[in-house]
């Protein structure tokens, strides 16, 4: 796994951050709007946003007064593609295992 993907997966591993992403899937939002459904402080939300931003999962507008966040789909697509590669890897690998198991059982029967 590349470090970039590790950062994406680590960012996704937190339930609050996933909830923030789900909220942003509905549209851009400010820090206070994002904090609304949670019982945690604004600075805590800001820290989560920083992690999401570092992972490239969101972008934040530069306006200090009205800083809104937007969802970025590309890193999530990367995460999905990475999983898909693993799926193909194991599909092929299992086919080889299947052939191997046939072979060794045959050898046991016909020494």
């Amino acid at each position, binding site marked *: *796994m590349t470090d970039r993907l590790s950062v994406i997966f680590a960012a996704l591993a937190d339930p609050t951050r996933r909830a923030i992403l*789900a909220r942003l*899937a509905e549209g851009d939002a400010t820090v206070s709007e994002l904090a609304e459904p949670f019982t945690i402080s604004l600075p805590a939300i800001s820290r989560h946003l920083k992690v999401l931003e570092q992972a490239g999962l969101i972008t934040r507008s530069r306006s200090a007064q009205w800083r809104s966040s937007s969802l970025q789909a590309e890193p999530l697509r990367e*995460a999905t593609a990475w999983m*898909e590669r693993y*799926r193909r890897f194991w599909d092929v*690998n299992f086919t*080889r*295992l299947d052939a191997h198991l046939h072979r060794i059982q045959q050898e046991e029967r016909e020494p």
Partner: protein
Amino acid sequence: MSDATTQLVLTRIFDAPRELVYRAFTDPDQLAAWFGPVGWSVPRDSVDIEAKVGGHQRFTMVNDEDPAQNSPVDVTFVEVVENELLVGEENASEIPEFAGSLMRMRLEFHDEPGGKTRLVLTQGPYTEDFVAMAREGWGSSFTKLDRTLG
């Protein structure tokens, strides 16, 4: 967002008893004989397996045409039940901030009628959160995110 984004789950039935399928993953001679994608091999001398908690499963996949291309694997077992279960972890990140970010692979070996074995593989970046997330299925709001991803 579907579970496939975060956890890979594959089930395959093999026409061999459980002990044999288990051995294919834990016996170095066996693993070297089959592991790897087409066009890749696992040299026997690269394999070192100690199937116990805290033990390692180390080996290297080498490209048949270009041996300079190789991919080392180093897994630490965290759960081992002979002929039943193998759970291994691989550190996925060198970034100190995310040092806890591990890839976990879980292999379950189940009996199937007719002396067959059902193998269930679960693999993914693994934390308790991810397990909870997989159970929740990410909730309905992620349906929208799915569409975003198209």
